[in-house]
């Protein structure tokens, strides 16, 4: 496998400046009091918490731990590391009862369905806390999982803003190191922690470092599949990645609106989301 990872290197000072500015700007424009985010113990939500605390002040962040009965204790402990380091407000809302109320009605439900239910239960908790405290639900998705569609529609993708969704996992790690996020969180194998022993890379079938390089070439640098293969990446791998990006585009776009009028939402009714700000 070739190594072009150096092309993904980022100036972390600039990244931090832009992303903290973005968070502060969004909160101010909608008139929220701060942000609420789910803290899983993983690197993405940890980085989002660090950026949010820096942008808004620790007292304006509410971290929510939302364990399901199968969630690992290590995840809760790692989430605690972030809470303690930042001094942010936090609560724990177990989702086992919420999720199981649906899951037990379908005894043959597979892990994918269960995982989606858990992700959506967490979204419900975050939006409820949002309404309770006037806080904006903060996204924690990165560019790699967004492009691969490795997320649950209206679950972890159901948020009000995306501070790190233009950073590949490799870049998330760089920024996490620069912001001195606790080492155990940076080093452990990424996992959605939806069932015991799950890891992202095991489930995806490739490593983040490998896929980040291919995605960088195809998306950012606009290489064709053939050109990425010429760089030395295996054709089957490149094709699999690109097919996955395409197949999951629906997760990155708003649902299509059937146009019949002269001026239609989603077609030619064009205002920024920041219109209200």
């Amino acid at each position: 496998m070739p190594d072009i990872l150096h092309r993904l290197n980022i100036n972390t000072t600039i990244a931090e400046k832009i992303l903290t500015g973005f968070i502060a700007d969004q909160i101010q424009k909608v008139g929220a009091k701060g942000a609420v985010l789910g803290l899983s113990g993983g690197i993405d939500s940890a980085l989002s918490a660090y950026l949010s605390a820096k942008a808004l002040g620790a007292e304006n962040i509410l971290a929510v731990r939302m364990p399901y009965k199968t969630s690992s204790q290590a995840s809760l402990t790692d989430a605690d590391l972030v809470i303690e380091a930042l001094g942010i407000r936090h609560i724990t809302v177990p989702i086992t009862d919420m999720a199981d109320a649906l899951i037990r009605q379908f005894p043959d439900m597979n892990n994918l369905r269960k995982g989606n239910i858990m992700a959506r239960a967490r979204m419900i908790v975050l939006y409820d806390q949002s309404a309770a405290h006037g806080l904006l639900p903060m996204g924690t998705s990165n560019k790699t999982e967004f492009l691969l569609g490795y997320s649950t529609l209206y679950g972890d993708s159901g948020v009000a803003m995306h501070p790190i969704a233009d950073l590949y996992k490799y870049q998330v790690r760089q920024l996490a190191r620069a912001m001195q996020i606790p080492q155990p969180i940076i080093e452990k194998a990424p996992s959605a922690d939806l069932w015991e022993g799950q890891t992202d890379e095991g489930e995806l079938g490739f490593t983040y470092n490998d896929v980040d390089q291919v995605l960088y070439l195809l998306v950012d640098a606009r290489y064709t599949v053939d050109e990425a293969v010429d760089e030395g990446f295996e054709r089957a791998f490149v094709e699999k990645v690109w097919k996955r990006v395409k197949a999951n585009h629906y997760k990155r776009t708003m649902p299509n609106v059937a146009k019949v009028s002269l001026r239609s939402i989603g077609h030619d009714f064009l205002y920024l989301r920041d219109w209200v700000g």
Partner: protein
Amino acid sequence: MQIKIGLAQIYPKLADVNANLTKHLDYIQRAKADGVELLVFPELSMTGYQVQDLVPEVAIRAHADDPIFAQLLSASIGIDVVVGFVQRDLRNRFFIASAYLSNGECVHIHRKIYLPTYAMFDEARYFDMGEHVRAFDTRFGRVGMLICEDFWHMSPPYLLWMDGADMLILQSSSPSRGLDGGDALSVARWVELVNQAYGSIFTNHVVHCNRVGYEDGKNFWGGSSVVSPDGEFLTKGHYFDEMLITQMVDLNQTHRVRSRLPLLRDERPELLQRELARILRRDGQ
């Protein structure tokens, strides 16, 4: 001749012309108090950048009987001001425009001639293209104005140089992009390289004001600057931060550099015209 130039590196509020007018008047007041004689605002400083379907609501007429424009004119007494706005013409066409205001008069209006429609840009959907590149006289000598994409092409600054401009005033709303391992965003490095090249090649002062702030997920990188006729930065504002930048500029440096480096004297525009005419004829066949 020494002049003090100000760069109002502001964060305009999207589509809120009244709020932006207040901010302009505040910056003008502050700059005046600081002895600034020429204050430059960024592209679309009165409206924000991505106004999209709000264009008709934010457009103004560049005329003393327009209540907004009238206040900008009044504010230009004692300080020359360059503002960015959406100009509505009498036939309901809209332009991205910049106005040079001095002593209560509108000296010149430039309408953006290159409207980008690639990548994240969609300007030609909303705006009509300007048709003219003209230098004009000010109390600080002959000047030319361009707006953002206009100076990503090299012909407009060249035309202004040939039309007698000894200073280029460039306005932009340049979105941040190209985060890599470098000391600045790749877009900032590109613009800075080009501004230094214009200063060097035209032996001109290059005054550039770029906005800051956020519109949806996009942000604007600021870094407004003044480049000397030697191609060196006299000043460069912070990236990303709203601020008023001021710089004393010695306009006499232009003739000193041109004594050493007579690029303007030796330029052969007739040759350019002849060869270009030939090339265009050939392409037409």
